[in-house]
């Protein structure tokens, strides 16, 4: 492999929309290995932070920098959105699309896509129009489509929100496998159990700021801030 | 008829009419065929056209009260300045057309059943020729005078037009007046009031006023005196009843 795109460095990064600061300033580094879980109450800025890192949200202040030039870093990331975006095509064509973008011949892309679909339990749905899938199936599709690119870093925004217990376990296995294979993962979730199972380190967002960062075991055992403590207990965070 | 307006004569007459008899004449400019139709339907109070046969049919069917000749102008033959058919040397309109046919020089016809078109057809007939048998040099444009002149100018073709339209035409290109003056080319304009018995809403009194004016002294002076580039366009020939 060529030079890694990591670490990713955020230095006073700010996301501002029409004069309103949604997130920041954020100082943060995403190192070369690990699985970072982003937690925090609704509207605290998790999604915005992930988008900022991925380059979907314009940086209004400060810097967001990869270890390689931006142009090189762009193609080596994947992102799974909080509400999955389905192209108005068949399931198999949705999953194959990133490959086709990379110039893989259509037939080959389709058959690879079929394999990935099967891994995510969508083997039966290949020829169905993607917009008609059930909520959970859409999430699975989005995951398959993100992983088929074999990215160096994978951003996941609550990817298991609509999944059943078994699917969650299976996908966690896939993610852990990917992590073992060298994929860096940054994931937002509200599922405390999932966070405990997967996280190597935690970023706790609160009011649009990074309120606390810590290795996972420390965070869950002994959060330093009162807000994180309250959040872990499901208490009212004020 | 279009030539009345294209010539610019209407711009001279209408203000004077307004001044003299206080009448606001609303001029609707369409081809002769359409003008006759408007008259039949009673959508206008009077028509000014130039196609004798059609006019007579119109009167015979009872759509108009009477026909009053007002003035005439003349048709001319126009062609590219190189004059490939040499019609400028012809002595009658008929020979000029025969020369064009013989040379198979491009000729654009109105092709729209207008007064001008009918005149052209009658001339071909007089020349012993039938346009239906002509080759692709004879183009029926199916359009008004202005549009037909535009086509002729674009194709460098011969075309027959009324003098007024030609003098006022701004897109002459390479075209020049090639032949004129044969008396068969005279073009009589007539005024026909719409019959109030058929269309009671027609403003008969006003129409009569207008007719009087059009056949009167002032009109005669204005029509005969109307010139473009020093050329007289229309000759007043209304007779006192």
């Amino acid at each position, binding site marked *: 492999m060529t030079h890694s795109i990591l670490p990713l460095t955020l230095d006073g990064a700010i996301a501002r929309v029409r004069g309103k600061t949604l997130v920041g300033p954020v100082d943060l580094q995403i190192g070369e290995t690990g699985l970072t879980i982003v937690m925090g109450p609704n509207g605290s800025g998790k999604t915005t932070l992930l988008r900022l890192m991925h380059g979907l949200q314009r940086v209004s202040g400060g810097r967001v920098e990869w270890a390689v030039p931006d142009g090189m870093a762009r193609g080596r990331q994947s992102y799974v959105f909080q509400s999955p975006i389905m192209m108005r095509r068949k399931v198999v064509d949705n999953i194959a699309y990133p490959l086709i973008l990379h110039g893989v011949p259509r037939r080959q892309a389709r058959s690879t896509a079929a394999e990935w679909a099967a891994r995510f339990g969508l083997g039966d749905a290949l020829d169905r129009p993607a917009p008609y899938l059930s909520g959970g199936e859409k999430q699975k599709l989005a995951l398959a489509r993100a992983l088929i690119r074999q990215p160096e870093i994978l951003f996941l925004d609550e990817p298991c929100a609509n999944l059943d217990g078994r699917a969650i376990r299976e996908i966690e296995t896939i993610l852990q496998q990917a992590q073992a294979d060298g994929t860096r993962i940054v994931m937002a979730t509200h599922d405390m159990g999932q966070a405990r199972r997967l996280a190597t380190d935690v970023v706790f967002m609160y009011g649009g700021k990074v309120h606390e960062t810590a290795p996972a075991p420390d965070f869950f055992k002994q959060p330093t801030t009162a807000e994180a403590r309250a959040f872990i207990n499901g208490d009212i965070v004020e | 008829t279009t030539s009345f307006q294209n010539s610019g004569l209407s711009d001279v007459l209408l203000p004077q009419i307004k001044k003299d008899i206080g009448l606001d004449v*609303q001029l609707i400019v369409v081809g002769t065929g359409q003008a006759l139709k408007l008259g*039949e339907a009673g*959508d206008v109070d009077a028509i000014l056209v130039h196609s004798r046969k059609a006019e007579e049919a119109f009167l015979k069917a009872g759509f108009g009260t009477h026909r009053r000749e007002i003035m005439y102008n003349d048709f001319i033959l126009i062609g590219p300045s190189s004059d490939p058919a040499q019609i400028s040397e012809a002595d009658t309109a008929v020979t000029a057309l025969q020369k064009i046919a013989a040379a198979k020089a491009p000729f654009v016809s109105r092709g729209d059943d207008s007064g001008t078109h009918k005149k052209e057809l009658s001339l071909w007939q007089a020349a012993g020729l039938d346009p239906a048998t002509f080759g692709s040099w004879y183009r029926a444009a199916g359009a008004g005078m202005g549009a037909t002149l535009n086509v002729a100018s674009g194709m460098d073709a011969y075309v027959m037009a009324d003098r007024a339209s030609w003098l006022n035409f701004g897109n002459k290109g390479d075209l020049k007046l090639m032949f004129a003056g044969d008396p068969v080319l005279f073009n009589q304009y007539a005024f026909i009031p719409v019959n109030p018995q058929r269309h009671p809403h027609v403003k008969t009194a006003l129409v009569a006023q207008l007719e009087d004016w059009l056949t009167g002294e002032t009109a005669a002076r204005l029509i005969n005196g109307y010139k473009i580039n020093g050329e007289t366009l229309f000759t007043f020939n209304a007779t006192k009843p």
Partner: protein
Amino acid sequence: MNDIAQGTIDAFRLIFTLDPDLLEVVGLSLRVTVTAVLIASLIGLPLGAWLVINRFRFRRQTIAVLNALMGLPPVVVGLFVYMMLSRSGPFGVFGLLFTPTAMIIAQVIIITPLIASISHQTIRDLWAEYHDLLISLNTSRWQRITALLWDGRRALLTAMLAGFGRAIGEVGAIMIVGGNIDHSTRVLTTSIALETGKGNFAFAMGLGFVLITLAVTINLLMHSLSRTERASVW
């Protein structure tokens, strides 16, 4: 080409010196077209929405016919309106022929199918988004139509502007039912046609530029009023 420059200069000189004749023509063009667009929108927009939310037997055919009516040749519409309004026609008694009203009627007929078709297309996407919610809220037909039209208003602007464009540039029908009568029913397009017939291309083109300038101004105005481009979603 110098001709054209000259014609344009002439035309704009007329505008800037506020030539009363030209202003009258421009004013009438605007009056007729704006009125026609408003009336056609009042019919076309709800019709477009209605076709989206209702499923009936010949829906597909109806939409195809509506789309086809976008192709109504203006001359035919002009003729039709002429025959309706002519003294010997059914509405002859109103004496509307050769008045601006007749021109408005013709334009409404021409642009209503266009506005309805485009708004139908626009609203379809919005309906796909809102369908479940509006059905679940037990809305009446009329409530659905108003919600779709209201929330889609910025996108519907394109439909109205397309209608405006078609109407302001239209000449065939206007000529037949309006008659291009000086100081009464002469508008920009019929003036252009008249000058073209006289072979005064330069002046005709000049008037054309005036017309396009007018259209651009109005479009910019509408866009900035509705701030269509400010928000990316709405």
